[in-house]
């Protein structure tokens, strides 16, 4: 487009000058001024036409028209602030919510992992499908085999936990990761200060070098510039800091906790304190790897399959046929994102429906206004406005509304961002990367434009089919709208109801799942129970471990229990390892043991794996678990007595279906030593309880005595009327009175733990519920608008009916029937949609069938009730019509 060189006024002046010159010339020829001037004008032709041609030639009329439209639209919006406010708020809500959910989706699902060439990163997962076990962990020899296979550039198991850090400003309990020296080379991450581990380092045990996180450096070490080379103590072992990782670096973990590692230790997982590198000792998990450049995941998998097959042939005793050992490669992204994908997509779908309902509502409002403005449109068309210009103008109005809404929505989002992040549960992976980034804004803009076009188009299309004569005449008679337009509005309301019903049923199903989960028979009683954790140090040299054998550990445990029992409010006390924490423990806390039954011995890898917890005898009574058979272990089953085990009903039913398991013996390997196995006698059978998973009623579990098998990761359980804040401090004093170097942390009531496991579900239920309520409100507003419109349109007719003696309740029924018809039509369509959506949601439901008749019925009735209520208000107005007034209405 060329630059506009001349103003129209300049052009006008030139024309003026021309006419003056011509007039003068004619006057010189003897004409009078008046004659000369009119002749000059005549010979010039149509001035306006010339000016129009100048105007059209010298600018971009489309642009001009556009600005005209925008200005006009802005004026129209200003003139009806109520309408504008409702429409803008509706859109703000829809677009803001959509952008919010999208920002989470963007951060979790769409962003690649923050490492170079993330497509080469995979999780390496060992499965034993033959015994129904997944992700059993990798053994050290397997790790070495894979690392040497030529398939991977690096393979790196991740260990970790929490550890006592001393040597900083304050003794702290920090999260650490134990990784092989090649870990950072694998991820392609460099420290911001100092150096990383040497990937070729093969020191047995832990190398004495550590890297720390930026946060730990800034927090515990006050950004000490001479941090490199500084000595620190971890569980009393001495280490040297060699580097600081940058603030943006996170371990590829699933949860916030897994990704907030503050210290990295290097280890080759060989030599003490790691167990002997036996092929059968599967303890490395999770394992990540970087595939060699040029290989795809599929190619790598097929080469790995060949390797696994040859290993199975080479070591038939370690890989018995029945266990069917195999190794899976899963893109790292997938393991990190995990199962929230489904929930997030569901939320995005829900919020999209809300946005769509919002659009339909605004379209409805615009249509109502368009009918009021029908005369204006008709008049403009009669005056020669092109149809396309009118269409554009209506579209511009729609877009302007939607843009305003979008802007308000994003503004609200910016303000409420912190709040939003707070209500989202921690368990969402990579959430701290969620932000209002450019892609999010772009998405919001796109949603805005599409929304604007959708609801701008409804009245625009309608305006395109206006019958001028009819319109002008109609308007003259004071009635509004055409039959066709009323039909469009009714269709919109039906759509709105259908969409709302889908959302409400989704919310209803989630609500029922949640309620079912809350009502589930736990099999244990979490009320008034508190758990506090402690951790016995694991020195790198086992000889210095003062709690190594049962005989060493048991007195400590008894002393802690004795002291704890004296605390105020404590009625019962027991201890266990962290796997014994009901629902509150992480995956890394699980101990899975092969279940080798006497008389049916199979190689360790051929035996099914079951979860085992070590507990003190008081544990079962404290948690209110039910004994079905035999006995629980007591104080007499101590470190000197024969080893005992208590199993749950699932194990009993699965492995001794027609026998009494009490008295049978199972072989369990000793802790800290993967080669020695000991026979344990089954003394009792417990009823199943959902300590492992709320949703799974039967997880095989067994319990052993903590006195007979000591553990390092301890949890102390107390029941009674406890003051949560005070008891943690009091218990710490008691534990540290026994051993002042022990950390006491992680105090939590079991109710809190229960709430924690439900947090993600609660979140998606609440969000979808909120969306559903919004949708219901919008649908109610929509039907209210349509019925009000119908009533006002028929005021005259109702007046006549009343004047002729119609009963008011008949009129009421007549109006309500119209509303009911719309609601039922919407509900019927919605039910079909809801059936489809419910089946897609089956994975996130619990205890309720996707096509749950109760939910469907109740929700449909609720929707119709709301519709009736929304219709009742205008209908009541209709029957209060004064026939005289209505008749004079003409």
């Amino acid at each position, binding site marked *: 487009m*060329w630059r506009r060189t001349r103003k129209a006024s300049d052009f006008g002046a030139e*024309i003026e000058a021309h006419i003056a*010159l011509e007039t*003068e010339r004619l006057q010189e020829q003897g004409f009078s001024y008046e004659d000369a001037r009119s002749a000059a004008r*005549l*010979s010039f*032709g149509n001035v306006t036409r*010339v000016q129009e041609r100048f105007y059209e*030639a010298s600018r971009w009329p489309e642009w001009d028209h556009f600005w005209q439209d925008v200005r006009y639209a802005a004026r129209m919006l200003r003139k009806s602030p109520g309408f504008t406010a409702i429409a803008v708020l509706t859109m703000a809500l829809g677009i803001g919510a959509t952008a919010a959910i999208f920002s989470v989706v963007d951060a979790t699902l769409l962003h690649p992992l923050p490492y170079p060439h993330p497509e080469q990163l995979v999780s390496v997962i060992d499965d034993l499908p033959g015994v129904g076990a997944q992700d059993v962990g990798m053994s050290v020899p397997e790790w070495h085999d894979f690392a040497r296979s030529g398939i991977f550039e690096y393979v790196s198991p991740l260990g970790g936990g929490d550890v006592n850090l001393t040597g900083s400003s304050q003794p702290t309990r920090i999260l650490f990761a134990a990784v092989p020296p090649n870990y950072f080379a694998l991820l392609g991450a460099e420290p911001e200060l100092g150096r990383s581990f040497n990937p070729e380092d093969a020191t047995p045990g832990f190398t004495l070098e550590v890297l720390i996180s930026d946060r730990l450096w800034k927090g515990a070490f006050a950004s000490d510039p001479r941090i490199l080379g500084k000595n620190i103590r971890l569980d009393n072992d001495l280490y040297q800091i060699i580097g600081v990782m940058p603030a943006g670096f996170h371990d590829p973990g699933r949860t916030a906790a897994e990704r907030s590692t503050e210290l990295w230790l290097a280890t080759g997982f060989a030599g003490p304190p790691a167990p002997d590198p036996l092929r059968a000792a599967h303890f490395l998990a999770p394992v990540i790897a970087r595939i060699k450049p040029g290989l795809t995941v599929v190619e790598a998998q097929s080469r790995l399959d060949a390797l696994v097959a040859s290993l199975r042939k080479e070591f038939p005793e370690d890989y018995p046929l029945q266990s069917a050992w195999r190794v899976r490669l899963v893109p790292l992204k997938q393991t990190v994102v995990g199962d929230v994908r489904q929930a997030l997509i569901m939320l995005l779908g829900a919020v999209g429906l809300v946005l769509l309902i919002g659009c339909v509502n605004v379209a409805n409002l615009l249509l109502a206004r368009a009918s009021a403005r029908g005369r204006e449109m008709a008049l403009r068309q009669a005056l020669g406005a092109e149809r396309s210009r009118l269409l554009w103008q209506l579209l511009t109005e729609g877009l302007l509304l939607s843009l305003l809404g979008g802007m308000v929505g994003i503004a609200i989002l910016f303000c409420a961002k912190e709040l939003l992040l707070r209500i989202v549960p921690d368990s969402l992976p990579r959430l701290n990367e969620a932000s209002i980034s450019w892609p999010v804004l772009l998405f919001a803009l796109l949603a805005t434009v599409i929304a604007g076009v959708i609801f701008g188009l409804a009245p625009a299309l309608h305006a395109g089919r206006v019958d001028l004569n009819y319109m002008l005449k109609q308007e003259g008679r004071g009635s509004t709208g055409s039959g066709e337009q009323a039909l469009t509005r009714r269709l919109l309301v039906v759509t709105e109801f259908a969409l709302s019903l889908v959302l409400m049923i989704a919310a209803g199903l989630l609500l029922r799942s949640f309620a079912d989960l809350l009502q589930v028979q736990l099999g244990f009683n979490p009320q008034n129970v508190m758990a506090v954790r402690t951790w016995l140090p694991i020195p790198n040299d086992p000889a210095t471990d003062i709690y190594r054998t049962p005989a060493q550990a048991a007195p400590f445990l008894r002393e802690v229990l004795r002291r704890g029992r004296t605390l105020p409010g404590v009625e019962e006390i027991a201890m266990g390892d962290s796997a014994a924490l009901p629902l509150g423990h992480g995956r890394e806390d699980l101990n899975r043991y092969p279940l080798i039954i006497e008389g049916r011995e199979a190689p360790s890898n051929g035996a099914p794996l079951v979860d085992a917890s070590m507990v003190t005898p008081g544990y079962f009574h404290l948690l209110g678990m039910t004994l079905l058979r035999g006995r629980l272990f007591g104080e007499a089953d101590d470190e000197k007595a024969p080893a005992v085990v208590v199993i749950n009903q699932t194990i009993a039913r699965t492995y001794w279906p027609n026998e009494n398991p009490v008295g049978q013996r199972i072989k369990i390997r000793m802790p800290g030593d993967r080669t020695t196995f000991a026979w344990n006698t089954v003394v009792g059978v417990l009823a199943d309880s959902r300590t492992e998973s709320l949703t799974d009623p039967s997880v095989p579990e067994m319990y052993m005595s903590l006195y007979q098998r000591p553990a390092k990761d301890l949890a102390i359980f107390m029941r009674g009327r406890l003051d949560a804040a005070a008891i943690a401090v009091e218990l710490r004093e008691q534990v540290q009175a026994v051993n002042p170097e022990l950390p006491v942390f992680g105090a939590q009531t079991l109710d809190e733990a229960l709430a924690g496991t439900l947090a993600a579900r609660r979140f998606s239920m609440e969000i979808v519920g909120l969306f559903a309520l919004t949708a219901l409100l919008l649908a109610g507003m929509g039907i209210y608008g349509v019925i009000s419109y119908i009533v006002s349109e028929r005021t005259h007719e109702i007046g006549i009916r009343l004047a002729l003696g119609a009963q008011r309740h008949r009129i009421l029924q007549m109006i309500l029937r119209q509303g009911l018809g719309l609601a039922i039509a919407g509900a019927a369509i919605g039910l079909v949609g809801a059936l489809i959506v419910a089946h897609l949601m089956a994975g996130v439901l619990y205890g309720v069938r996707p096509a749950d008749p109760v939910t469907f019925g109740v929700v449909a009735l609720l929707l119709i009730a709301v519709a009736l209520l929304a219709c009742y208000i205008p209908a009541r107005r209709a029957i209060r019509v004064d026939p005289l007034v209505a008749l004079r209405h003409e």
Partner: protein
Amino acid sequence: MTTQDTTERLELLQGTLDLLILRTLIFGAQHGQGIARAIQQTSDEELLVEHGALYPALQRLEERKWISAKWGISRNNRKARFYTLTAAGRKQLVRETSKWNRLTTAIGRILESEEG
């Protein structure tokens, strides 16, 4: 000047107005009214130029940089916008003139052969 006068004159062919304007300006700077007069007088009042039609044409030529314009004072002391031929405009005039000559010759030949 009467309406009857104007109806007897020749209507300008499409696209020839540009050529006429450029040709007129070869004698020096001139304002719009002057150009209109010059075309009419030089053609012995044979050509009908609606004065108004001149201005969009002038605007077009100016945008193509064939002529340039600036406000000045006319002979009888009136403000007017004067147009001057640019170098590009001079070249354009040569091109257009030869095109016109070829066109008229060709059309002339056809018409003559029809007659013969």
